[in-house]
Structures are given as C-alpha cells and as structure tokens.
C-alpha cells in the first residue's frame, strides 16, 4: 500500500520526463528554455509543443534551441531561426497576417453573428409579445409583463 502511494506521488515527475537533461547553468536559463520550448511546435506530432514531445525530432530541436541560447541569441532571434527553416507552422501562436486573420478573429466573428441573431430573435419576440399585450390590455386594463411569458 505504501509503495503504491509512493508510486502515485511520483507520477507527476513523469510529466517532466519529456525534457531531456540539458546542462542548464541556473534556474533562469532553464525557465527561459521552458518558455521557448512551450511555444514552439513539434513538427512531427503537430499538436504538441517542443516541451511536451518525446519525438526524436523534437529532441533535436530542443538541443538546437539550447545551443542557440548558449550562443547568445535572443528569444526572437531563435524563433526567427526556426521559422526560416520550418515556416510559421513551428510557432504555436501564429503571427497575425492577412492569411491568419480568419484563424485569429473567426471565433469572435462567429460570436458576433450569434449575438446579432439572438438580439434579433429576442427583439422580435418582445415585439410580438407587446402586440399581444396591446390586445390584452384593452380587455382587462391590468397589464402584467411577467406573467405573459
């Protein structure tokens, strides 16, 4: 039982196993590396980032990112280096461009269309209700908006 509990407690460590041990000189460097690896895409698995992927290619790219960091390149320069070779697809967060407009703003657009549709429907119902109400009030002179729903 105790062993099982221990195994259970050690389980989260597996999540970190994807990152192969790189000789980081301090916490700061490791954090910087992690941030970068998390926003770069593994080209093989496509829906995983570099930090999470166990693919051999992801390992190569992690090594390259680490080497470039050591060579003193900035995060932006490293991103550019990879984009020049693997295209924008390597970035988990694609840049805003003419051909990514729909990707970035499509959901907002759909939401907007939905909001307009709901507004129109509600307004039309309210109008229909008001019309009905108008007939009723002439009958009993005591309009009660709540009840008509």
């Amino acid at each position, binding site marked *: 039982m105790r062993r099982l509990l221990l195994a259970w407690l050690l389980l989260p460590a597996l999540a970190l196993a994807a990152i192969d041990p790189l000789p980081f000189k301090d916490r700061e460097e490791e954090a910087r590396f992690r941030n970068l690896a998390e926003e770069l895409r593994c*080209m*093989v698995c*496509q829906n995983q980032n570099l930090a999470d992927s166990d693919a*051999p*290619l992801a390992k*190569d*790219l992690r090594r*390259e990112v680490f080497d470039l960091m050591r060579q003193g390149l900035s995060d932006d320069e490293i991103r550019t280096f990879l*984009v*020049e*070779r*693997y*295209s924008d*697809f390597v970035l988990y967060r694609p840049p805003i461009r003419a051909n990514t407009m729909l990707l970035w703003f499509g959901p907002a657009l759909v939401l907007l269309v939905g909001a307009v*549709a709901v507004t129109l*429907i509600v307004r*039309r119902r309210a109008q229909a209700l008001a019309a009905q109400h108008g007939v009723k009030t002439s009958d009993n002179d005591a309009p009660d908006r709540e009840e008509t729903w």
Partner: protein
Amino acid sequence: MIGRLLPLIVFLGLGGLLFAGIQLNRVRDSSVVQSPLIGKPAPDFRLPELLDPAREVARADLLGQVYLLNVWASWCVSCRLEHPVLEAFSASGEVPLIGLNWKDEKPDALRWLRQFGNPYAAIAHDPDNRVGLHFGVYGTPETFLIDAEGTIRYKHIGPLTFDIIDQQVRPLLRELRGEG
C-alpha cells in the same frame, strides 16, 4: 418564416464549412508544411560520405550542377516504397541523385543499401540531424531540387512517385536546363 428556417440555415452553413475543410485537406494535405526555403540558397553543409568516410559531401563541391537531394533513412517505410522510383530515375541519368542519410545508424543504412540497391551518386551521412535541421527536414522521405547556383527550387515531402517526377520534377529540370 425565417425563424423556422434558421436551424436549417445554420445546419447547412456548418455542413458547408466542414465539407470545405475536408475538401481543402484533399487538395493539400494539412500534414504537409510548405518549406519557406524554396527560392532561397540551400543551407551550407559538409558531411562525411556514408560509404567512403574519407570523402565528403559538401554544398560547395556540388555547385555548378542541378541535383536532387533525397532525405532517407533505413527505418523509414515510405523510403522503401520510394526506392524503386529512385532507382529508375537515377538509372535514366537525367539528374544526379544525392542522398542525405538522416538520423540513421551507419550499419543499418549500409545494410539497407546492400539489400535494396544504391541509387545515389553520393550519400551524406547526418546521424545527428545537424544538416537536416537547417533544411527544415521533419520526416522522411523529403526531396529537394537544387540548381547550379545552389538555390532550392523545389521540395517534395513524402515518397516520390513516377507521376510526381513526370509532372513536377521533369518540367522543372527542363526549365532549369533552358536557363543554363
């Protein structure tokens, strides 16, 4: 009236959207990522030759001729599928075929060549992905067409077929020869 039709309209709209998604994927496989390197100078490389480590395969030495750079590995199943096509195309002598043996163990690669034959004029050995990475290689097989100035003119991801060679590679070769 319109209110009653609304669910149908929404349904048709969604259906259209999903259908377009499927069609798009049929025309252009979404797992194929276009290389940003086309039209750019090929990355510089100098690697040991797989069969004869005393020799080297280098971009600088290949300048002045049009060649195909084919990325392959012994562990790659599609490469086996592609192999007869490469053999035939290489035998036609239209363009030199340079291999880039990628992320592979040397004994495995040598065994593969013995077993299936060697269509390559020379093979660069890149076990650690030092060069492939600069070519943006993310799988095998991949094939680059590089012109006499060392510029990447074309890239095919996935196995080459006779159709692709006829429809894409040969016309481009003719065009390049016409220029030169």
